[in-house]
């Protein structure tokens, strides 16, 4: 197998006395679809905060495309190609939908984008995501599902090679879930590796090539979706003894 | 040595008073995350109300302070209502909320100047002017009485917050709105009550302030630094921490004032504040 684009080794993170993550090893390959699951409080969001740079891990290394990014700020990692969407959407409320996309295009994707093409590329992303008609609407008044799409659109506009999607489907209807799933598949077809954190099992099972399971800050299992479904440790973690 | 020990004792007394000034801010800023920069202005308003009633009716200043608390409570609750409707509900707290209280502080100070001018005002009471001696340390009553009352108020508020249902709800509301709602308490009403309580403390703090020394409208400004320095140094969300910080500030300020000159005193509080923010923003006993 080729060299992974993301390699996390021995990652630990504590908050005061509370151990959020302990000795996490993780690998993601180029263009891979990885599902990250685990009960509430297992450390999934903390892990992606460390990967994206929102938090700094206490021990361990994070290597992205051969580069040690462990101590890099989040914006530097974004420029290198690590993007994330937030569980609770965080649009730039004073801007229109289109203007929201200018920011990642002009900053994170700066080295990969021509200055003159920013507007066009923003519109292309909106087309892909299905928000083209809303381009000039204010981002503050969007519906829930459109806000989630805008989150993903912004992440996509950063032209990442790794996207972490944090519960992009929580609270959505079944049809809306499929909508978002389609967008993630389309993203992946363009060569973007995706780490999907989700509680909606059918989405995880459909989407992931490989699944990693966390519980209480440790990795307790990894494998194909089918293997995970039948894993006794995973069952125990979710259902208790 | 004489000077030094007098300064230490004076500093502790002053620190105890500062704690009473800061306890209201510890609630609004430390617990509710509302940056009420107008808090010291309310204290000055309390001082002026005390002066007016003391001059007209001759009542004891501490008594006046206590009598004023329900009025200040209602005013505080009302102001919170406006703040909530205009800012918290729409999520605009950061920029507009700050400017709101800044404007409020300004209005209070300027109204006082316009109506009463910039002359220093003082109150009269039987014990002001007397001193009690402990060996080579002399404590003026005008410091001792406020210190004792301040300590009572501060400890009282702390006990209230940690022992009663409403008090604990106030401590909880910043951390977990949902749990509070599930318990049947309305977060907005709790916060309104807390804000009212905080402003009520300024009534007493104001009455104590004018016992300690003469007051004029711009005196409040130095207290902005003191109050925020105390709350930040003590650690957000920690009343005991706030008390310790108040005592530290009182002592340091008095030492600086005694040995370097009183014109340096304002810089102490603000300097402490800047240092704390730069080096250890969570303060001594802070929560995050």
């Amino acid at each position: 197998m080729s060299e992974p684009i993301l390699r996390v080794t021995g990652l630990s993170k504590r908050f005061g006395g509370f151990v959020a993550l302990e000795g996490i090893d993780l690998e993601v390959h180029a263009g891979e679809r990885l599902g990250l699951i685990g009960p509430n409080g297992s450390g999934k969001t903390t892990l992606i905060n460390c990967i994206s740079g929102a938090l700094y891990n206490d021990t361990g290394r994070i290597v992205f495309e051969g580069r040690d990014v462990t101590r890099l700020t989040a914006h530097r990692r974004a420029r290198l190609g690590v993007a994330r969407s937030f569980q609770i959407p965080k649009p730039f409320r004073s801007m229109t939908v289109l203007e929201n996309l200018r920011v990642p295009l002009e900053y994170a994707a700066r080295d990969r984008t021509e200055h003159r093409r920013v507007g066009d590329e923003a519109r292309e992303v909106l087309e892909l995501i299905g928000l083209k008609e809303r381009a000039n609407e204010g981002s503050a008044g969007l519906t829930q599902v459109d806000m989630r799409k805008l989150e993903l659109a912004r992440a996509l506009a950063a032209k990442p090679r790794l996207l972490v999607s944090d519960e992009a489907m929580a609270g959505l209807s079944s049809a809306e879930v499929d909508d978002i799933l389609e967008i993630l598949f389309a993203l992946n077809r363009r060569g973007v590796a995706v780490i999907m954190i989700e509680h909606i099992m059918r989405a995880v099972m459909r989407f992931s090539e490989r699944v990693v399971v966390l519980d209480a800050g440790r990795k307790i299992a990894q494998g194909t979706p089918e293997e995970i479904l039948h894993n006794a440790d995973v069952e125990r973690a979710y259902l208790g003894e | 040595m004489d000077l030094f020990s007098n300064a230490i004792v004076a500093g502790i007394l002053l620190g105890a008073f500062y704690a009473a000034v800061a306890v209201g801010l510890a609630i609004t800023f430390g617990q509710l995350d509302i940056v009420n920069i107008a808090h010291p202005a309310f204290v000055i308003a309390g001082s002026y109300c005390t002066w007016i009633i003391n001059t007209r009716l001759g009542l004891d200043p501490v008594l006046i302070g206590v009598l004023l608390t329900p009025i200040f409570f209602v005013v505080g609750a009302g102001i919170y209502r406006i703040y909530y409707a205009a800012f918290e509900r729409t999520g605009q707290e950061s920029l507009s909320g700050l400017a709101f209280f800044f404007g409020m502080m300004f209005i209070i100070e300027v109204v006082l100047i316009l109506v009463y001018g910039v002359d220093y005002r003082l109150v009269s009471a039987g014990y002001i002017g007397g001193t009690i001696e402990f060996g080579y340390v002399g404590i003026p009553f005008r410091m001792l009485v406020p210190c004792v009352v301040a300590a009572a108020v501060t400890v009282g508020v702390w006990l209230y917050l940690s022992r009663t249902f409403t008090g604990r709800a106030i401590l909880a509301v910043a951390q977990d709105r949902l749990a509070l709602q599930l318990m049947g308490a309305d977060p907005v009403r709790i916060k309104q009550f807390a804000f009212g309580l905080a402003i009520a403390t300024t009534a007493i703090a104001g009455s104590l302030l004018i016992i300690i020394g003469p007051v004029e409208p711009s005196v409040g400004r130095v207290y902005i630094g003191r109050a925020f320095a105390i709350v930040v140094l003590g650690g957000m969300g920690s009343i005991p921490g706030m008390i310790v910080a108040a005592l530290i500030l009182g002592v340091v300020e008095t030492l600086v004032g005694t040995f370097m000159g009183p014109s340096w005193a304002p810089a102490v509080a603000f300097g402490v504040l800047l240092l704390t923010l730069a080096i250890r923003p969570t303060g001594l006993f802070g929560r995050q």
Partner: protein
Amino acid sequence: MKRADIVFSAILAAVFLSGLGLTEVMKNEYYFNAMYVVLQATIMAVAWNILGGFTGYVNFGSAGFFAIGAYTSIVLDKAFGLPLPFLILGGATVCGALGLGVGYLTLRLKGVYFAIATLAMAIVFETFINNWSYVGGARGVYLLTPEKHLWFDSYIQMLFVLMLALALACIAVSRFLNSSRLGRGLAAIRDDEVAAECAGVPTLRLKLISATVMGAMMGIAGAPYPFFVTFVDPLSAFSLFVAVNSIAMPMIGGTAHWLGPVIGALLVGTAQEIITVNVSSELNVLLVGIMLVVFITLAPQGIVGLAQ
């Protein structure tokens, strides 16, 4: 250059030329005094808005930057006798560095702490100046009005034109920032700093740039002040009125757009001059406080927001 830029430059030029024209036509010195005050307020409002409105970090210590600009002027004039342009440059440099320094210490914290820290900074500096006898300490210092005023009829006319030029320059910088890539980065920081950082915006660096520009502009506003008033003391230089105006004017005019602080300053500044002459100057001070509270409660987007 885009057409909008050409129109804007033309307007700036027209305004400046009218200002020059006024010095030929108008003989009543009072009006130049009044306009100087309004222009000074405009620069302060525009400056404040760069960090406050564009980037979302509230500065309560505007009076500190202004006063340090003024006192830098005094020190450079007293020590080296430098001409006015150099004093302005000095003020801009010192206050720009101040903005950078204070920013570096506190912009990594939440906006709330930054706001309080700026107030603290202003008071710490006021205390230092109060204790510094070289610049007169608490008693203040008198300055003689310089002899030279180029081809103008009087010194105040020259100051007016100078201030006009400076104000227009600051407005142009503000407008450029508002619509540039840098400005969009600042707006992203204001709207959601965490999301901005994850979208690749170097938030700390942009915040520092914003604070430095703001500081420098406020220093520019303060540098000619000693020559305008001829008597400077800490009480007037560090006046809370300056601080409140620098916040109220942008908030009333509208903080998201470069035009907001300009409109706010012109409207409020002119109103204040009229009230000072006809009623009293203390009333001004009360009114601006009330206007600030009323506007942010009822019209948080300011006049520009209402118009949109």
